[in-house]
């Protein structure tokens, strides 16, 4: 290799750190699924073109949950899940294959109807299952999971909350408008008290279509906090599209969401799903989406977890609350886990934080190899034994846990326990 290191970018040094982080390796003992193997395989395809059957190689490399755990331990700063997305995107047959899986599997896997609640309007989902449309991929995958479980009973109420300005100050969200010489396109930038008067709620596909009650609760909690919501019809956050290798569609979704944000004066975007938040924050990795670096930084700052604002409230837990509630930390929590912090405040000693493990949702892996995703899910399920209830802060995890949890364990998004 004659190119120098800077030009090549960081390289895998085969140190093996990522093997211990990968839920697929843990669940299966199959090293060919390890992040290191994926990165090697991608390199091999470049170094030795024509040696491997590209279809088979791309299929193997794409057996990935997209959990991002490997990237967090890699000292070289590699992101194997992005390598996988790149392989998927580059592979000419992938898109057709994906839609074929959509048609073939969606109608057989969905609805699972293990325990019918009889409350779900399935008609829109049936049409979704028959009609491949990139923007609906995340929705489709989630709809395969756990919709047949009865919703949880609420037992927490918000008694009191500080004024929005105080919440902003205490939560450390920067309420200042940036100093933009020359100005940015769009309406003037919200700052200070205005931020609380025009919040955009990012519902995500699950909140919009599968569990509208989550969205309803998020809206009423915002009202109770004294914040005013501006109606916004965001597109998919783009994370599922990205991991599926549908990079053009991901780009379009991101552009649309940023336009909505700009039109609202670049105020706060509040979301209640860890994966959506991660997907939204990841926009800054695509600098060309933004006017300049400061706009990207402002976006990063103004996309805020609902729990980060809510945790300064005072809550009441009713007498019939379960004695113990487990907490499942989503893989996609990025930085501080505000959902866990909120639940610690609300539930105190009732909260039991589960060992850090993936739920096995797995995004596109659900279509590519559901049995593999289930092998990961089974390990999480083993941790749930004896727990009456398990909560989480990601809509995909919530649906996955609902699909795989034992009968005695009720599962849900933490929004479910708020009345």
């Amino acid at each position: 290799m004659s190119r120098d290191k800077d030009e090549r970018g960081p390289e895998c040094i085969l140190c093996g750190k990522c093997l211990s982080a990968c839920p697929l390796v843990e669940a299966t003992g199959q090293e060919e699924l390890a992040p290191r193997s994926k990165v090697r395989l991608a390199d091999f395809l470049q170094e030795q073109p024509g040696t491997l059957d590209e279809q088979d190689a791309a299929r193997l490399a794409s057996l990935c949950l997209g959990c991002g755990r490997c990237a967090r331990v890699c000292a070289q700063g590699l992101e194997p899940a992005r390598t996988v997305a790149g392989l998927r995107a580059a592979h000419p047959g992938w898109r057709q294959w994906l839609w074929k899986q959509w048609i073939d599997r969606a109608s057989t896997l969905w609805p699972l109807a293990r325990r019918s609640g009889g409350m779900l309007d399935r008609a829109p989902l049936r049409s979704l299952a028959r009609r491949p449309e990139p923007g609906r991929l995340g929705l489709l995958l989630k709809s395969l999971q756990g919709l047949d479980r009865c919703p949880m009973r609420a037992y927490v109420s918000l008694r009191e909350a500080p004024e929005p300005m105080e919440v902003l100050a205490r939560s450390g969200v920067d309420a200042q408008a940036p100093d933009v010489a020359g100005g940015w396109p769009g309406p003037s930038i919200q700052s200070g008290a205005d931020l609380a008067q025009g919040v955009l709620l990012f519902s995500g596909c699950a909140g919009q279509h599968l569990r509208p009650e989550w969205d309803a609760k998020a809206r009423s909690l915002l009202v109770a906090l004294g914040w005013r919501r501006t109606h916004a019809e965001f597109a998919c956050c783009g994370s599922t599209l990205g991991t599926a290798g549908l990079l053009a569609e991901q780009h379009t979704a991101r552009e649309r969401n940023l336009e909505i944000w700009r039109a609202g004066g670049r105020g706060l975007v509040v979301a209640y799903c860890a994966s959506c938040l991660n997907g939204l924050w990841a926009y800054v990795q695509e600098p060309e989406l933004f006017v300049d670096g400061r706009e990207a930084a402002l976006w990063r700052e103004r996309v805020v977890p609902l729990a980060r604002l809510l945790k300064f409230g005072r809550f009441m837990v009713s007498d019939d609350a379960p004695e113990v509630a487990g907490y499942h930390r989503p893989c996609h929590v990025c930085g501080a886990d505000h959902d866990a912090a909120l639940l610690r405040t609300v539930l105190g000693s009732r909260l039991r934080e589960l060992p850090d493990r993936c739920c096995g949702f797995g995004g596109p892996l659900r279509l590519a190899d559901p049995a593999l995703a289930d092998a990961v899910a089974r390990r999480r399920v083993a941790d749930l034994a004896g727990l009456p209830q398990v909560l989480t802060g990601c809509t995909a995890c919530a649906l996955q846990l609902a699909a795989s949890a034992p009968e005695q364990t009720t599962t849900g998004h933490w929004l479910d326990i708020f009345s």
Partner: protein
Amino acid sequence: MSTLFPKLSSSQQRFLRDLFPGSGALLAPEELVGFAGDASQKQALPGAVVRPVEEAQLRELLRWAHLERVPVYARARATNKVGQTVPVRGGVVVSFLRMNRVLDIDPQDFVAVVQPGVVTAQFQQELESRGLFYPPDPASVKISTLGGNVATCAGGMRALKYGVTRDHLLGLRAVLPGGEVLALGSRCHKDVSGLDLTRLLAGSAGTLALFSELTLKLLPRPETSASALVGFAGFPDALEAAAAVFHAGLLPAALEFMDSVTLEALAAEFGRHDDAEQYSWLREAGAALLFRLDGSRAAVDAEMQTLERAVSRGKPVFLESATGADEEPLWEVRRAISPSLFHLAPDKSGEDVAVPRGRVLEAVQGLHAIGRELGLRTACFGHLGDGNLHANILFDRARGQAEAARQAKSKLFGLVLSLGGTLTGEHGIGLSKKEWMADQIGPAEMDVMQRLKAVFDPHGIMNPGKEWA
């Protein structure tokens, strides 16, 4: 192009598929690519990968491979840094990831029995809640396995007080080419019956047998620990302080050192952090020592006082001590060394040589002299307590310094051997140091090793192309 993949005959492939059903055998080229390399970054493709779950499969496999003369390469997490798992002659890679059960932990016998694929840190965690302790702690403890540690006789920071992996291995079950099983050692902490084949197999790097079960010695978990990070004006002062500590009758659990170039790299790293002020001493000191003491609370408190008095002999420019969870930031500095060195040069070659403890100063000064002669920077850190140095040669491949780095490496090995040292204290010979091995091991010794190898493995199927095999 497909000849890149060494091919097994179709009947051999059938045999493997039958013995390792389902996902237990891999034959497709794309599946084999991930098994070509290890942390040495060397690579060669195997003909097949198999994943045993029990000893009976290993017996059948080695009976067959012995008859068919098929090379067999044991592989755990492939974190070894010298190419010990690289299948340079094709054949079959045996992945131990699915033999990962802890079979027995016995607090009465102070013994554990495990399968070889258990990750070492996970095992240690399981012991902790029971008040038990398995000391070997290679820096790769979270990412490597007990089987890999035994096969490489891995060392670690705690080796000074507690010894290396070999010292904690009481026995093992090992499958030989031909399929026979050796049940070696026992659950006794002392056992001198017969030749010590257990210790022979520790460090045999997959060249003699495949391990199916390990019996490990456990200790009671020390009540507490304390650490001290001490900076000195220069390396001789640091050595004087270390000598004073031993002279005072203390045996630290760990004693790490860092030379001036290492501190410069760390200063560049921590200078970028928010709490950079806290690390300003890194720019003032010309050498540093990091101690850890462990034992009962009363003993550790008393020993820490003795240690602080003793190190004053080296006129420290900086001293910070901490206990329990507060020790972590001090060890963070140690862990940051390896990546920090990249602030000084884009490439490095790190050698884990060891010298007799009294020759460390000569080794460190000699390394720097080699660097000056060849126009390269060199950095030295490591386990001072047992003379095991991480000698790093820093270079820039893009500026054509690769050849100079290679020369420096050869000269370093010459220097170390002239001081009565060894090419490797921990990582092994593997492929990376094979060409220098004869500089250290004489013809008579090599001959005995080769004859011994033939007793275990007459057809040379076990990890061929490595070490002396």
